[in-house]
């Protein structure tokens, strides 16, 4: 018995070493691409870095964080970012799930529908921002045409110049792309769902809604966690679409943290303050991601 245990341990040790060797190139790459910039950003955030980057500058401790946390501009930006993120995560996950359910059904043209699902995801964020800027235009935009035809609006509306509408429209534009990504991942999850489960439930008298709640959603939980965490990260880091559509305006209505960071780091080259903002945003994204995992993750029962 003891010999068997030792043998398993030795084998697993060899496996671990083999796995480590396989992962080493990727780990080194990640170290260079992620760890180095992260450490530099943290270092910059506690220094008064000159715009030309010739040195780290004077060590200022948490002064830059103090400036950030004392600024009403920052807190307003946090509010915008959180609002944007909630809308983005909820809508892109929900619409993605709906799209996945739809294209998982048997119907004529299903293959084409699945192929079309990829198009938004294959389009760069910036391009989508430009497309949606025109789509939401108050004079010539298709969105106004659709809404007036459906009698939802009585007259054309300048969505992007209206501080109450600009943020929802940028959320919609971002959701349009991200939902297709969520849809693809969730579709992959749905395709692993055995038909027998649904059929058995139907025979037992479960309604469509009951089957969705008690069979489909639990089955998709691991994929949903992944999708939601990715959506949270994408939401907090979103820049391109908002910049292309509104540059953060009108006023500060769409000034998400990533735009504030861009302006501080690259516009006015306050590298210390911009880095402090970036660290804070990273922490917010981390907390958001962990909260989602905590909320959605339940350990799978271990088979006996």
């Amino acid at each position: 018995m003891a010999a068997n245990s030792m043998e398993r341990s030795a084998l697993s040790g060899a496996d671990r070493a083999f796995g480590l060797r396989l992962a080493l190139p990727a780990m080194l790459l990640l170290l260079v691409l992620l760890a180095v910039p992260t450490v530099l950003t943290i270092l910059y955030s506690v220094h008064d870095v000159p715009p030309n980057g010739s040195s780290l500058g004077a060590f200022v401790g948490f002064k830059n964080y103090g400036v950030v946390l004392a600024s009403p501009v920052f807190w307003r930006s946090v509010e915008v970012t959180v609002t944007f993120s909630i809308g983005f995560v909820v809508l892109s996950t929900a619409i993605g799930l709906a799209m996945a359910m739809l294209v998982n059904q048997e119907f004529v043209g299903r293959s084409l529908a699945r192929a079309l699902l990829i198009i938004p995801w294959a389009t760069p964020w910036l391009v989508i921002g430009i497309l949606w800027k025109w789509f939401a235009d108050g004079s010539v935009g298709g969105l106004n045409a659709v809404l007036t035809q459906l009698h939802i609006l009585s007259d054309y509306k300048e969505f992007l110049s209206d501080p109450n509408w600009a943020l929802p429209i940028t959320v919609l534009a971002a959701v349009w792309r991200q939902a297709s990504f969520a849809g693809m991942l969730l579709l992959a999850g749905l395709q692993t769902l055995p038909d027998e489960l649904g059929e058995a439930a139907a025979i037992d008298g479960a309604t469509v809604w009951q089957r969705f709640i008690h069979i489909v959603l639990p089955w998709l939980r691991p994929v949903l966690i992944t999708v939601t965490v990715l959506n949270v990260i994408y939401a907090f880091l979103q820049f391109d679409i908002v910049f292309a559509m509104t540059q953060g305006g009108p006023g500060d209505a769409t000034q998400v943290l990533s735009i504030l960071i861009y302006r501080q780091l690259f516009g006015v080259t306050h590298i210390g303050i911009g880095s402090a903002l970036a660290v804070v945003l990273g922490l917010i994204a981390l907390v958001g991601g962990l909260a989602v995992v905590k909320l959605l993750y339940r350990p799978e029962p271990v088979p006996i």
Partner: protein
Amino acid sequence: MGDKTTGLFPGQIDRRDFLRAGGAAALGAAFLPGLMSSTAQAAAYSGTLNMLGWDFQPDTIKSLVAGWTAAGNPKVDVAIIPNLGYSSAIQTRLRGGDKLDLYYNFAYSSQKFIDQGWAAKLNGLPDVDKLLADMFESARARHVNVAGDIISVPYFSAVHMLHYNEKMLTDAGITTVPSTLKEIYDASKKLQSGGLASPYVAYWVKEFCEEYFHTYLLNEGITAFDDKGAPVFADDPKTEGVFAWWQSMYQEGLAPKSVLTDDPGKESAQMAQGQAAFFVLHHYFLTSIRSIGGPQSNNVKSAPIGGSNYTLQIGEVLQMGNIADADEKAAAWDLMKYYGWKDKNGKFSVFTQWAKAAGLAAPYPGFFTDPDVIAAFPSYYDLPMISKVFATGSKVVPARTLAWYPDFQAKVGDLVHPLLLGQATPKDTVAALTKAATDAQSGTGI
């Protein structure tokens, strides 16, 4: 303008631009003998110069520079990057150690680049004093800082003008072209009551509000900053009135609701289509409006604004990188003189090309009387009038080139948009802008 986030120059490269680029190459060839007459100094450098510009007619830029090289001067590697994000991009490149001999820059960044060691002072370089002497006195403060250091040469210059639809004004019984803010408001009201929904358009996106901040204050005879860069606009009792006017123009619908996000291309089209009767922006947008060929294009003319006061003169610049090698520096300077002043024949050959391409101007009185330049401008331009505005009707506001200024520039839109949206009063906005200026000078705040 962290940057001018929308390419400010009208339109993108199209067939016409392509043909113009071809014309530029021919122009370069035509000036070849003149260029060859004094190339000895530049020719001493055998390497390749590095030049960076933004993407307004990149083929024209390359052909103009190629013409200079073809005259026996060093090769030039011209890199073009988008206007959108240019300032951020060039700062990132320079911070990363990119070597640039000369580059386009926004005037408001020029002193900052000197202070950061990214740009060289031009004091003492051959003919630099002649170049400055040739310039409109009003323009010199953009290129010479308060300490007397020469920090840049012109890439192009422009003045804010009122583009107006003459026929619409006549039809509405407006016999005199409005000039002051009040006259523009009154005329806009009259046009609006006559059925034109939003008669006034302007490029009021966040990044561009700062130019209008100065334009409108200058129109009322207020200079926002004193010679030392101290914000003094709050001291003038007329300032609140300017902001009240600005707010009224938006709140009363005299400017369309979309004006906070519209780009100049759309606004030029609104003028060309007759959807607006006034458009305040740089003088060269007349080219854009006319070239659209809309039903009202030919009725649009331009006039000075500010009455007996001033308008804003703007201009972007060429700066020289910090070059250690004397021959390389001489070659870069030779190219800068050619590109930002005159060729060796004393002709404004590069500026003439920009005038043909888009109606851009050079801040030199001689530019407006040069027969080639006059021939290059379409006949609908009133060059003597524009020249007069450059000479006596405009100011550059020297504070706009100070090192702290980009910080202030970046905040103006954040504070003006709430005013326009009715979320802030004129009084609060004046106070907030004053604080933004003092914060920018002290390097505090976000």
